[in-house]
């Protein structure tokens, strides 16, 4: 039973939100390559949302296009989520490995990405009065993905429903902590760099002069 290709498994988990991830776990399926592709597609969806959205809906400031925030909002957030969740759930009897969490989380994002692309497509054919079509597709994808994410985490760690929700909330907290520390580290290293550089210039002047 359940002999699917990689794509087949993605399709299976998306359309079987209740048991899909459990099936996948049971069969020890899921491809890290596919997961990475999905995360990349999430980033592409973010860019497309900004650049290809129908003109009448596009609120982006078109004079500047900075890809870094989009990259942070998609790829960086995703991996922070994965690491945060892994760090937290390892401590709380979660069975998920880092790889598993990465794969399951990425698979859960598929409906969101697909709906995002669909709503971008729709936005090019509708006028502002019909915006509801676009937003409803967008929210459909979002809610679907949230439901899948809960199921994915539940299956990955073999938690109860309540524990899953709690772990997810704390994962968000962990994400904030990680990002805060990362920024702190970055600024500290920058200061160290500046310090080192000023010493270098000082010495350079002494030697020269």
């Amino acid at each position, binding site marked *: 039973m359940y002999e699917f290709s990689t794509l087949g498994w993605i399709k299976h988990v998306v359309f079987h939100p209740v048991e899909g991830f459990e099936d996948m776990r049971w069969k020890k399926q899921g491809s890290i390559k596919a997961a990475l592709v999905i995360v990349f597609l999430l980033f592409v969806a973010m860019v497309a949302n900004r650049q290809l959205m129908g*003109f*009448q809906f*596009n609120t982006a*400031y078109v004079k500047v296009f900075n890809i870094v925030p989009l990259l942070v909002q998609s790829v960086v957030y995703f991996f922070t989520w994965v690491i945060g969740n892994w760090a937290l759930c390892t401590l709380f009897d979660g069975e998920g490995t880092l790889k598993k969490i990465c794969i399951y989380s990425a698979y859960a994002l598929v409906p969101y990405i697909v709906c995002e692309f669909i709503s971008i497509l729709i936005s090019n054919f509708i006028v502002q009065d019909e915006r509801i079509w676009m937003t409803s597709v967008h929210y459909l994808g979002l809610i679907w993905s949230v439901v899948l994410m809960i199921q994915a985490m539940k299956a990955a760690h073999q938690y109860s429903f309540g524990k899953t929700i709690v772990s997810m909330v704390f994962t968000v907290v962990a994400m904030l902590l990680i990002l805060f520390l990362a920024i702190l580290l970055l600024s500290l290293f920058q200061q160290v760099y500046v310090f080192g550089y000023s010493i270098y210039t000082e010495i350079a002047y002494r030697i020269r002069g």
Partner: protein
Amino acid sequence: MNGNKNPMKKFFGLAMAAVTALSMTTTAFADEPYNSYNYDTWDDPVPSQSVYRVEATITGAEMQLDRLRDRSDPLFYDEEAAVTLSDAADMSWDDDRKELWIADTKNNRIIVLDEELKLKARYYTVEGSGVDGFAAPGGIFVNTSPSLGCQVAYIADTDNSRIVKAKVKSATELEFVQDYTKPDSSLYTIQTFLPKKVLADGAENVYSVVSNISTGSVQFSRDGTFSQYYGANRVQVTAAIVAQRLWRAIASEDQLEGMQRNVPVEYANFDIDIDGFIYTVTEVTTDTDAVKKLNAAGYNIWNNAVGNEYKFGDLAGGQYDALTKKSHNTRLTDVDVSSTKLINVLDYETGRVFQYDSECNLIAIFGTKTSTSDQRGSLSNPNAVESYGDKVFILDGSKNDITVFVETQFGKYVHEAFELYDQGLYTEAKSSWEEVIKRDGGYTTAYIGLGKAALKNEEYSKALKYFKTAYDQDDYDKAFKYTREAFLRENFTLIVIVIVLLIVLVIVRKVMKQKGIRLIKRKPKRLNIEDGFGILGDAEKKAEKAAEEAVDEAEETVGEAAEEAEEAAEEVSVSELEEAADDEEKEGE
């Protein structure tokens, strides 16, 4: 042969080149002492062409105020009469007689200039008013009285605590008609009555901006009785005010008494247009009630609280001042509505005039204020703005002169275009907009105007392009709606055919898959046992039914598809049976 001529030619050529080069560098280029700019869709400042240029600065000498000292002149007043203006606070343009009235505040007099800005009349007092002379008159308004049928002047005689209405008798005499003094009403709770600006509407109601009154302008009826406060400003909601509100809720009576009261800022000045709407300006830093357009009931038509987005003055972060490079807060000090309904708003802080059309679209920004302010077009204490025809006058209370701005050729096209555009004559405005774009490719409204013209002519793709250039999403949306409708109308048949074809294709494919028919024969794959379970029993029935449907569908529409489907229907039963048999065999094994 030409050996002799060549050196001469060379010499002349060199000389010519030198002369040309020198004359190029030494050409005096009269430019405004500021960079013209405008705001784009994102409220970013963008360089623009000048809509106005400085024509002249008129000082007392150029107004011929020395005539006041000339005994032989009919306008003679006194040997010692001041020959310059002094901290003049207000101006009023009488369009019927082409006169510019100036309240020369510190000199306690009223000066009247003609169209050429030469002295025409002067008034030092109003006869029969019981008060001798003026005391720091801060406001003036002149029009033709509907009831008296002659020219009347309303003078806000600030330090005499009165507004006086006077008929013009001659070039030196004003005749008293009516005065408006401190209202004897329980609503008027302030001790002083210091009118700063004055205005009269068509029914000769008199409005006055009075110092220390924050509940709007004081309105008098024609006979001099106080009628009401008109068009109060609102308190701008800031974090401090919200916090204070919370404190007030828990404070005791004694504490409440000690607290600062929140009162709205009073207007700085106002003006009335030919339709009787009153425009007010307030010297506030943000857009709460900065400029208002009040109807007769005192209701603000340009109310941002009901979802409009009217913006006036320099927009947030808009510090496009290459000269001063300073940050500044906009302080709108005067407003003027021209006879063509252009609205000029004067910013005291930067000396800029912001010109808007009747729909509040920004037309132009001109004028400046520099530290030295000794260049033409640069202002020091801009107090009042008035306009006439293609000219805009700015009264400077520190330089004591009037700066005259006159519209450029570019400005002429802009104004023409806006006039037609505001009337909805988009097609007629097209040629003017094109001229505007030729001179300033960054003029946003021009693209919107051209887009609307194109939309009116049903040139949808052109309209879309223009709206996209202007980044006008709402108009783009409208154009897009029409474009889509037109597209659907033109291609309706094609679309229906394509949809039907697609449906047929899907059904045919489904049927073919079910029956295992392939157009290109391939080696049959190993069948999954699970796949066989469900359909084994009633496979034949299902197949037949599907085939019938397919045939029906196909016959109705396209021949090609029908052929395929028929072909399929013929082969269906046989192959299906074979397959089923195969499956059974495998199972058996």
